[in-house]
């Protein structure tokens, strides 16, 4: 075919293989610094006060409930025999799962050179940290005597005993703690150059002082950048297996047991996929409103970004669906009557509605994302992400509750009913999460400015280096 006489179909095809720009055209480095910093520097908007008073109230509820729980005992939860792990562990796994997207975006997408991550990684990493904090509350409370939880840390003590390092719960303590600490380091390392921006723009003494301290005296010379880039790469390289390991270890809590419905070998990758799924859903849940409030952010977090995140959502949702299928199939294929009964009970027992919700939200609804229409209309994306959030909570609930309510012996069967403390604490963790996030967008740059500047077309002086 001669050039210049392209058919309309071919024309459209050409257009659709064009890469969408990562930052809307016309946005310069200066604009990025000015706009992103201005979010932090401007007078606190009214909606922020409204929002934080809501989340703060919920946070107070959490504090009150936690105090009540510590003072009274774990019995104020609905946990019982046989359901010793209930909403607490469900919520723990739910939050820790949400805490996976941030590091995934920062680390894995960094290693795979997915440059679109730059606009969303900061907020996602912050979300990770806050979610892990929310998650950590539950196992800490669940140990019962909270003041004894230091027993999880291997230090020499007057009891002459040591932790059982072969226990999945111990692995969990190590994994979650490591994950939190490494994520903090990773997040802070990424913040340093942006904190320097805020420092350099600061006009008040208080700002100069605090941002000056936090920026550590960053100057942005090549002598610093070259080590900085290496350190960032290394931290990304370390975080990648770490992020996979954390939810795998969480899955070991269940899968290393012999309880039907828990003991299944696909749990580690399945949990990881679920965590990424839930985490991305939460990132979308937060960023879409943020884009709506701060409209120019739409030039940095473009529809193309949302589209890509939706593809991740679709992919991981499908992996989760695959895992549901495999669990069901293998339960049947195993020929083990307990396995078969457990899964039959899951789908048809008194908790069938939770199972149905889980399938609907995690597998069925995300299939809409096969269509570009749903991926590029933020309202739809928001709705689907909400479904995913709900679905992932129910997934954890289905796993925890259905396997425990039915023991091997019918005489020890029982149901779970949440108490008001269960419900209020769960709501309260959203308050904690929201409060921390609101504080974050108020005081720290929510877009990684220097990385976005680096993906602007003008930033890359092409240099040689071919073989």
């Amino acid at each position, binding site marked *: 075919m001669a050039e210049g006489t392209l058919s309309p179909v071919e024309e459209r095809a050409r257009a659709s293989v064009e890469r969408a720009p990562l930052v809307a055209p016309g946005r310069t480095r200066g604009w990025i610094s000015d706009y992103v910093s201005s979010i932090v520097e401007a007078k606190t908007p009214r909606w922020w006060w409204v929002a934080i008073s809501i989340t703060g109230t919920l946070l107070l509820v959490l504090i009150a409930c936690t105090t009540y729980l510590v003072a009274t005992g774990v019995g104020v939860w609905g946990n019982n025999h046989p359901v010793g792990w209930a909403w607490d562990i469900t919520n723990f796994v739910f939050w820790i799962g949400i805490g996976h997207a941030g590091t995934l975006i920062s680390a894995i997408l960094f290693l795979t050179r997915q440059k679109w991550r730059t606009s969303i990684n900061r907020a996602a990493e912050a979300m990770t940290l806050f979610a892990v904090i929310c998650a950590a509350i539950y196992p800490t409370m669940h140990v019962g005597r909270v003041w004894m939880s230091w027993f999880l840390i291997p230090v020499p003590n007057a009891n002459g005993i040591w932790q059982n390092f072969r226990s999945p719960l111990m692995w969990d303590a190590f994994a979650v703690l490591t994950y939190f600490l490494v994520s903090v380091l990773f997040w802070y390392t990424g913040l340093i150059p942006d904190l320097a921006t805020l420092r350099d723009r600061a006009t008040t003494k208080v700002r100069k002082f605090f941002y000056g301290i936090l920026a550590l005296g960053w100057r942005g010379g090549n002598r610093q950048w070259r080590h900085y880039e290496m350190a960032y790469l290394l931290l990304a390289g370390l975080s990648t297996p770490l992020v996979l390991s954390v939810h795998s270890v969480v899955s*070991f809590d269940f899968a290393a047991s012999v309880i039907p419905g828990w003991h299944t070998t*696909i749990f580690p990758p399945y949990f990881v996929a679920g965590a990424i799924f839930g985490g991305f859903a939460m990132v979308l849940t937060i960023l879409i409103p943020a884009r709506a409030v701060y409209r120019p952010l739409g030039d940095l977090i473009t529809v193309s970004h949302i589209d890509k995140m939706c593809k991740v959502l679709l992919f991981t949702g499908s992996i989760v669906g*695959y895992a549901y299928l495999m669990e069901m199939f293998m339960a049947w294929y195993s020929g083990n009557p307990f396995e078969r009964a457990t899964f039959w009970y899951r789908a048809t027992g008194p908790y069938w509605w939770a199972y149905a919700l889980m399938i609907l939200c995690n597998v069925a609804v995300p299939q809409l994302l096969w269509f570009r229409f749903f991926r590029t209309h933020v309202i739809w994306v928001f709705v689907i992400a909400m479904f995913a959030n709900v679905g992932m909570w129910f997934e954890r609930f289905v796993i925890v509750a259905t396997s425990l309510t039915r023991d091997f012996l019918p005489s020890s069967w029982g149901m779970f009913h949440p108490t008001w403390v269960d419900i209020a604490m769960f709501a309260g963790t959203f308050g904690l999460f929201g409060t921390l996030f609101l504080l974050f967008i108020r005081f720290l740059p929510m877009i990684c400015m220097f990385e976005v500047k680096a993906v602007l077309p003008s930033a890359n002086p092409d240099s040689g*280096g071919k073989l």
Partner: protein
Amino acid sequence: MSLRPDQKFDYRHVGYGFLAACALSALAFFGLLIGAILDVRQFAFSYLFAFVFFFTISLGALFWVIVHHAVDAEWSVVMRRQLENSACLFSALAVLFIPLVFVAPDLWAWMDPANAGNPVLQEKAAYLNRPFFWGRTLVYFAVFIGSAYLLRAYSVAQDASGSVRCTIYNRRVAFASIVPLALCVTFAAVDWLMSLDWHWFSTIWGVYLFAGAALSSLCVLVLVVTALRSVGYFKGLITEEHYHILGKLLLAFTIFWAYIGFSQYMLIWYANIPEETSYFILRNTGSWNVLSILLVVGHFVVPFLLLLPSLGKRRPGFLCGVAGWILAMHLLDVYLMVLPELHRTGFRPSILDLLAVLAIGSTLVAVFLKALGDSALYPIRDPRLQQSIDLQN
């Protein structure tokens, strides 16, 4: 449109290699035939082992082509044709599967009428029965072959027309293939390997086979690309930047394989449920245990440590060495999936193991060489070709 010499494979480079591969294949098959007459069970297991090994390589190649299109990748454009060629070996593999049909009851004991009364088997009879089994096998090959051929056909068509539409079509084929591929791989792994011992089950099994497939096909890609480079192709197209990415992917999938393998082993070891541990008890006893330990060290520790520093990943020669080593370990991995079910007392090598690998391997090499010259060595008019060549890490 005629291809430039550097775009088209010249058979002079293999000399009589093509004929040699054909001859070797014929000889090996003759040997196998004799072996099958002497010891049909040994033949059945050896042949399945060799078949699965080569099957995973094609499977992995198909997976990478699909990933390439699905994520709209850039860097892999120059080497995509070689992946397509490897993926298209599925039609040959379908033919090579036929001998297994004749020895099926010797291989898959559940087909043996003598076992029909087994209560566990009766529980699973709705899945493990002959008509359904063969039907599924047909579906697997249909999906694999269909997907691989469509992807390659559009890609080759683009060489001639330069139409970007081919890219779009391929993207659609890739998207449409993902779900069927995942299901087919899983159930093929269940049917051909897991059902060798019908008591045993593991939900991650399909993923485990897939992890090995993705890794070993990358190794084959490294070897093929380097071989082609060594005879003068891909000059200025495939640079050390590409090798660097391949090296990183090798490292990533080495870790992924270990992760999946560890998950499966650790959970079964930890829970210690009799019907599950049987698989690993068999492989962790006596001389099999030596090979199992070798697998852990050779398939994970060694390549992991070799691939960790960034220097080696940019050296084609080094990377080829590692790729060859991983392939050998993948061979061992598949061996340990299949053969312990036959020699339950310990490792007993047989000449048929070797002959089966030679027979299937040389046949596939011949088919591959044939495909190599059928089209350009890389998608010469892919819209992203230039970006792929200009790759910077």
